[in-house]
């Protein structure tokens, strides 16, 4: 339950029943996050939300002066659930900086490892962490009327997943005692075994290197992977319809639930799974090889694909301050004046960032966070857009669907949807799923996309497995390309961490790291108000959330807020040196009914 911190007096509002409620820490995520809200119980809406976290480690500081070859080993330790995404992204940046191209089979091995990571991580997060928000015990405590409906609502796809009613699904999600909860936990181990086959260890890999992998490619390696993959494919044939039934039920049982966690469609995806036939890791060809990725990069604004060009994406990243515990770096060194194509690089670009921490008391009216505010400059309008990743999958699907490029037999992007084909398994026939562009960017659709992306990752892995075996059968088993660390160089890597966009920017001088800045998904999602007064995506989405919970302030659990927050798959260590930001007061544009004014900085 929340802390009732007192009835707020200082916020102008028409409601007389505005109550401050705090949850610190928010559990069932990775890292420590606190949510501080004002709830308008008269109008059953969240009036205001601040989010905050509490850790600073200083990667960009202690990486300076280190050997650039160590970057992937070090940056893996940023995150304990998707560390391998960092390691992979770091090797992409190393490959560019060192001017090397790994052998094809090494790329397939990395793609198989990363696919296993998506299969593992989305699965454990969805069904062991998020799933608890939808479990019988939770729904009983927050919405007993909804549970009563669920008891009599027959599941549409019970023939596929085996649960008769929606309430049966909810019971199966009860932590530790629920059968599906335990099945998902067990499956999360099998997918980690798949991961370990390719990358050695979970979650900090041992076999990734700049130039390729140390994994020894053998018939046994790929067979051991494939048989586990097919068990996962069978599992997905049950899991996708199970989640469709559960999520559709919430729309049905609680009309208006689409508003929970909803925000404007402002989605970012930096692309995943390189195609070794096209990807040479040169900056000059980055537009071309970026578009050949098996998850297409893209920026989606109001449902339109603004760009799917990695050079364009890279050039317009801006790191802003405003409410964070750092000094500005306006007068610090400019490491990169222009990119290898001659485009100017801004002082607020990650290549030129200098991190100057200034620890201080937390002040929600001033500086209250270690997180900076990443933005993407929309050249069409001059706006610094607060893009979000929606927890990863919804942005990946949206960009991939609109770009309409991916077409690998198991997966087809149509321009408006993504089709996923799963072949026959031990007890179930072939299946084709289709993810269709949803009407909203909201909590339920973020969660639904996560399930569909598990199927996408499995289908992609089937393709990668075929490609890897083809290399092996042809006798091309060399997995690594030798290199020398240049005296000076720059590099960047773009990847999708499980929960969304990931970039690594490196500058090398005197054979050492002169500057290194990783930008993972959580800073994009969970940042504070920037110098222009634009709030971060996350608070923006939470602040718009209506309250459907049946409890009043005394027993309030904030379940709708929890569902909104967790739909973004918050991963606080991903804040790197940053700290989770905080949203500020409601933007009046989004909820005119309260007439709230921003009470912080402009």
């Amino acid at each position, binding site marked *: 339950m929340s802390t009732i911190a007192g009835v707020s007096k200082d916020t102008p509002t028409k409601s007389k029943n505005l109550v401050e409620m705090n949850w610190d820490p928010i559990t069932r995520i990775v890292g420590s996050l606190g949510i501080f809200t004002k709830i308008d119980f008269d109008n059953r809406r969240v009036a205001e939300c601040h989010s905050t976290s509490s850790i600073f480690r200083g990667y960009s500081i202690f990486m300076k002066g280190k050997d650039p070859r*160590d970057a992937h080993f070090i940056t893996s330790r940023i995150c304990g659930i998707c560390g391998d995404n960092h390691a992979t992204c770091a090797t992409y940046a190393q490959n560019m900086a060192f001017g090397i191209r790994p052998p094809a089979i090494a790329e397939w091995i990395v793609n198989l490892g990363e696919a296993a990571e998506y299969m593992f991580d989305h699965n454990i997060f969805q069904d062991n962490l998020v799933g608890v928000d939808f479990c019988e015990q939770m729904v009983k405590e927050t919405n007993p009327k909804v549970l009563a409906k669920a008891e009599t609502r027959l599941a549409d796809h019970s023939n596929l997943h085996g649960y008769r009613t929606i309430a049966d699904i909810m019971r199966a999600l009860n932590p530790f005692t629920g059968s599906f909860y335990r099945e998902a936990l067990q499956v999360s181990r099998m997918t980690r075994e798949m991961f370990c086959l390719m990358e050695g260890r*979970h979650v900090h890999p041992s076999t990734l*290197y700049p130039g390729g992998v140390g994994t020894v490619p053998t018939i046994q390696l790929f067979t051991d992977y494939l048989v586990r993959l097919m068990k996962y494919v069978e599992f997905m044939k049950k899991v996708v319809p199970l989640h469709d039934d559960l999520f559709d039920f919430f729309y049905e049982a609680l009309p208006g639930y689409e508003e929970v966690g909803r925000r404007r469609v402002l989605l970012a995806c930096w692309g995943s799974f390189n195609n070794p036939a096209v990807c040479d890791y040169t900056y000059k060809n980055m537009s071309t090889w970026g578009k050949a990725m098996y998850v297409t990069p893209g920026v989606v604004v109001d449902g339109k694909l603004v760009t799917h060009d990695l050079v364009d994406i890279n050039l317009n990243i801006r790191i802003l301050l405003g409410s964070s515990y750092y000094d500005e770096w306006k007068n610090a060194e400019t490491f990169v004046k222009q990119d290898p194509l001659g485009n100017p690089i801004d002082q607020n670009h990650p290549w030129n960032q200098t991190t100057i*921490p200034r620890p201080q008391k937390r002040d929600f009216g001033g500086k209250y966070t270690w997180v900076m505010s990443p933005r993407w400059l929309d050249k069409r309008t001059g706006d610094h857009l607060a893009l979000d990743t929606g927890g990863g999958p919804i942005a990946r699907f949206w960009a991939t669907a609109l770009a309409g490029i991916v077409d690998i037999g198991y997966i087809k992007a149509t321009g408006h949807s993504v089709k996923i084909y799963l072949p026959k398994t031990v007890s179930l026939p072939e299946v084709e799923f289709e993810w269709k562009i949803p009407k909203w960017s909201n909590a339920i659709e973020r969660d639904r996309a996560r399930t569909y992306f598990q199927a996408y990752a499995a289908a992609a892995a089937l393709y990668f497995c075929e490609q890897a075996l083809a290399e092996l059968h042809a006798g091309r088993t060399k997995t690594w390309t030798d290199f020398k660390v240049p005296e000076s160089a720059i590099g960047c890597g773009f990847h999708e961490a499980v929960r969304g966009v990931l970039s690594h920017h490196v500058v090398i001088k005197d054979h050492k790291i002169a500057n290194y800045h990783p930008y993972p998904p959580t800073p994009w999602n969970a940042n504070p108000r920037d110098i222009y007064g634009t709030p971060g995506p996350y608070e923006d989405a939470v602040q718009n959330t209506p309250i459907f919970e049946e409890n009043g302030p005394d027993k309030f659990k904030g379940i709708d807020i929890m569902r909104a927050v967790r739909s973004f798959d918050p991963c606080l260590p991903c804040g790197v040196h940053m700290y989770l930001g905080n949203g500020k007061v409601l933007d009046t544009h989004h909820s005119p009914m309260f007439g709230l004014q921003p009470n912080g900085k402009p």
Partner: protein
Amino acid sequence: MADAVPYGRKTQRDSPVSDVHIVWMTSGLGCDGDSVSITAATQPSIEDVILGAIPGLPKVHLHNPVLAYENGDEFLKYWYLAAEGKLNPFVLVVEGSIPNEKIKKEGYWAALGTDSKTGQPIQTNTWIDRLAPKALAVVACGTCATYGGIHAMAGNPTGAMGLADYLGWGWKSVAGLPVVNVPGCPVQPDNFMETLLYLLYQVAGLAPMIPLDDQLRPTWLFGKTVHDGCDRAGYYEQGDFAEEYGSPKCIVKLGCWGPVVNCNVPKRGWMAGIGGCPNVGGICIGCTMPGFPDKFMPFMDEPPGARVSSGAIGVYGRAIRALRSITNTTVNKEPKWRHPGAELTTGYIPRSY
């Protein structure tokens, strides 16, 4: 017949302690990778322990933020109860390095929860000060918590250190146990769960004092080197070394520190016997060691004196063991800047705090 007491029940002892709590702090400077890692364990699994599938154990209540049902104060109430001495008995698990909060004037490097009086975050170190004196046993989980790890590397701005550096290496719990260190970055899943199970048995009075070495590691897990358990050691013995990554041969020339690192991963595998480090082509970067990462960097260079010819091994075996023991002693020591003093000595010069 239905009422008959099974014969076995007469022979089984109930645990002398009915309930044990595990208070698990992930709020050091870490990545939560150790909590994630233990969800991969199967020997035993976390659900085996929680659902009572291990005979003789007390009922175990886990309070870990990654897995908890509760949020906010409902979750933190166990922290407050433990601090007041009202959660008995409990085992404290600490994950993440311990920052040095003394090196700056104000603010915090790591915190959990909010102080209701001041509205400021409660420092992780404050929680350790409150909870460690009340815990029956304190376990440092992963290399950050045991020895400082990655976040305590040269040039770090937070003055991070290991839990025993913070509490003192001679520290003992109310039950007379030293800090128990289970290093690994992250911790190998079964290594940790097996140690936790041992401690739960010990807490229940069913096992003697846990055997620890001078770095406070369980001796049965960390008594051998990576090299001792590596299935590529045969190549080493024949002086047959890999020249490039991806080769199935011994990879010491490519940066593997296996001969001087205390760790069982190549023998045990990462999970279910699968994966590992040098056994599957990944150089050992010494991630279980007190000297990690600094004494192993740059990771991809050949460790000094790591390689000898096959002939030399035969003739000078004893000398090599002696030399290795010197290196092993060096990498079993933390760098000197990991300390609880009020000065930051990592090499980073803060101008803003």
